């Protein structure tokens, strides 16, 4: 039934591919970087840490150039509609590269990884691979591409999580992550298959057309959406698909934790928004049932659950990494609020919130790593009296946490402001969600403040009280992150405007 394509056809295909490649430069470039890193690792022996780090940072920074060049290009779809180039995607490309750079920076200061005996080659390679994968997650417009990119991210993530082979918690985290991830992606895949079955299409734009044209069976659609939500929810770490995240965040090497909690979550959101805004923008037709059933209502429940669950459970944590893990679940909930409004303002809000989250969460983890290097512990009780012993870090961490709570004058506050603005702009429709968000953020204050509470209000039992010195570079990074968090808290115009500019998805029509 399939007849072979003629030579001419093959020619045309190749030319099309060539044409598309022009829009694909950053990804190609980063894949190259990936290769380079592996080769470097093979060539240079064990003593290559500094080298690899520098190369990967240099490479990542270089990629920014190509991304920048893409801004001039018109929004388009290529590779037979498999992949798209639009402002939304570009924003996330910047985002992931930035997070990649930060990941490298956090890696180089982490003592755990320094002590890691078998080299770091694959580590940086995998890091870059993840960047590529996430970029593709953000830009792919075809179910197949989405699945592939997501798997790419997941596989590298498993490996990175289990990178500390001697560390039981690391391995355990890897195992859980793996099993959980595999099943979730399996569900996602099954959901995709159902969609494909209903529409005979894999390109999301055409899917939405098909859905609009021929209609579909409600029940199957719901099943498909639920399964897809399971897959995406796992990437975003949203209740009730979050279960992996606390354990993985706790077990993984801290830089990886930071990376996962920010970047792969963001990738999940990018994909979520693209899929739902483009493939099923109108939700479902509600005529079918009295109860207003559509994917929006599912998202609402997910987001409410995430906000409540994440914050409430975080109160109980005494391990800082785990605490931040739970809080990241809550933040997924806040981000979903922006998605629910399903308009440009909401998208803009999500983008702003994400960039805020990038700064503050990375800042927090950065300081946590620095502290862990000194005290060798991530337990809340071991933070006692640290405020006096490392003044800068203490202050910085406090700022990041305040920002995570969402108090002015920090970037986090702006994120919350935008999100809630988006909600309230919709009138009283989403007010109850806004209320949940507000109240849970009060709860979040409590557990976030536990850290400064221990750092400043309590004195450590152990005798030595001297000031703990940290490297100049580390101090510099911390300080700059802190200043940025504060600066954008007061002058967020550029970022917010850029987010507005970027809140345009190919093939999606947001009011």
């Amino acid at each position, binding site marked *: 039934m*399939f007849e072979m394509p003629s030579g001419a056809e093959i020619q045309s295909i190749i030319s099309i591919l060539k044409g598309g490649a022009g829009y694909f430069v950053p990804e190609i470039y980063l894949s190259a970087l990936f290769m380079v890193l592996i080769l470097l690792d093979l060539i240079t022996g064990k003593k290559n840490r500094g080298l690899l780090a520098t190369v990967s940072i240099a490479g990542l920074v270089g990629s920014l150039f190509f991304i920048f060049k893409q801004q001039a290009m018109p929004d388009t779809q290529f590779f037979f509609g498999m992949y798209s180039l639009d402002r939304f995607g570009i924003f996330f490309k910047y985002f992931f590269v930035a997070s990649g750079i930060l990941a490298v920076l956090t890696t180089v200061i982490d003592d755990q990884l320094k002590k890691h005996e078998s080299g770091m080659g694959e580590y940086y390679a995998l890091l870059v691979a993840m960047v590529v994968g996430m970029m593709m997650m953000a830009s792919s417009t075809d*179910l*197949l591409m989405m*699945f*592939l990119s997501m*798997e790419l991210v997941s*596989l590298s993530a*498993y*490996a990175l999580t*289990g990178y500390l*082979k*001697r560390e*039981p*918690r690391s*391995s*355990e*985290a*890897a*195992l*859980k992550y*793996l*099993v959980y991830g*595999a*099943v979730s992606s*399996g*569900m996602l*895949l*099954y959901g*995709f*298959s*159902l969609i*494909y*079955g209903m529409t*005979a*299409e*894999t390109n999301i734009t055409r899917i939405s057309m098909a859905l609009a044209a021929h209609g579909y069976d409600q029940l199957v659609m719901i099943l498909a959406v639920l399964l897809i939500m399971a897959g995406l929810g796992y990437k975003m770490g949203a209740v009730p698909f979050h279960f992996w995240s*606390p*354990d993985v965040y*706790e*077990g993984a090497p801290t830089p990886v934790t930071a990376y996962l909690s920010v970047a792969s979550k963001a990738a999940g959101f990018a994909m979520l928004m693209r899929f739902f805004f483009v493939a099923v923008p109108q939700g479902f037709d509600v005529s079918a049932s009295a109860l207003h059933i559509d994917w929006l209502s599912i998202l609402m429940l997910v987001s409410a659950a995430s906000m409540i669950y994440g914050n409430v459970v975080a109160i*109980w944590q005494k391990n800082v990494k*785990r605490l931040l893990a739970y809080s990241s679940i809550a933040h997924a909930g806040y981000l979903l609020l922006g998605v629910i409004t399903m308009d440009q303002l909401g998208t803009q809000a999500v983008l702003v919130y994400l960039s805020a989250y990038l700064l503050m969460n990375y800042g927090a983890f950065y300081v946590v790593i620095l502290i862990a290097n000194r005290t060798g512990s991530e337990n809340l009780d071991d933070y006692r009296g640290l405020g006096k012993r490392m003044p800068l870090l203490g202050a910085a961490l406090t700022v990041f946490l305040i920002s995570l709570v969402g108090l002015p004058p920090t970037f986090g506050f702006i994120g919350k402001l935008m999100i809630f603005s988006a909600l309230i702009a919709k009138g009283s429709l989403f007010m109850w969600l806004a209320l949940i968000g507000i109240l849970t953020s009060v709860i979040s204050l409590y557990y976030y403040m536990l850290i400064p509470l221990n750092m400043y209000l309590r004195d450590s039992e152990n005798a030595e009280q001297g000031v703990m010195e940290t490297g100049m570079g580390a101090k510099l990074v911390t300080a700059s992150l802190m200043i940025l968090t504060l600066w954008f808290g007061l002058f967020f115009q550029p970022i917010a405007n850029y987010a507005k500019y970027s809140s345009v998805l190919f093939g999606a029509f947001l009011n």
Partner: protein
Amino acid sequence: MLTEQLLSIGVNHFLTISVILFGLGMFAVMTRKNAIVILMGVELILNAANINFLTFSKYNGGMEGVMFSLFVIVLAAAEAAVALAIVINIFKTFKTVDVSSVDTMKE
């Protein structure tokens, strides 16, 4: 006779099978202790999806389904590789491949 029966096999049959496979996979994943068996369960899930894709691409026409299943198979292989590495590592550190006994981090 036989051919008729073969011809009378429709989408539903395939879908039923895939659902069964999916269910079996989930069941295996949730109940089996041995990590390897769990991975098998994952394979079942993926292949259930594959069956869907192939069925749909057969009955809707078009190649996307076939492509999809091909890539899935490839990915499954890759995933298995990573998985095995991790499982081996687990065995090294925990001296067991019983997933349910690997629960030092909780709550």
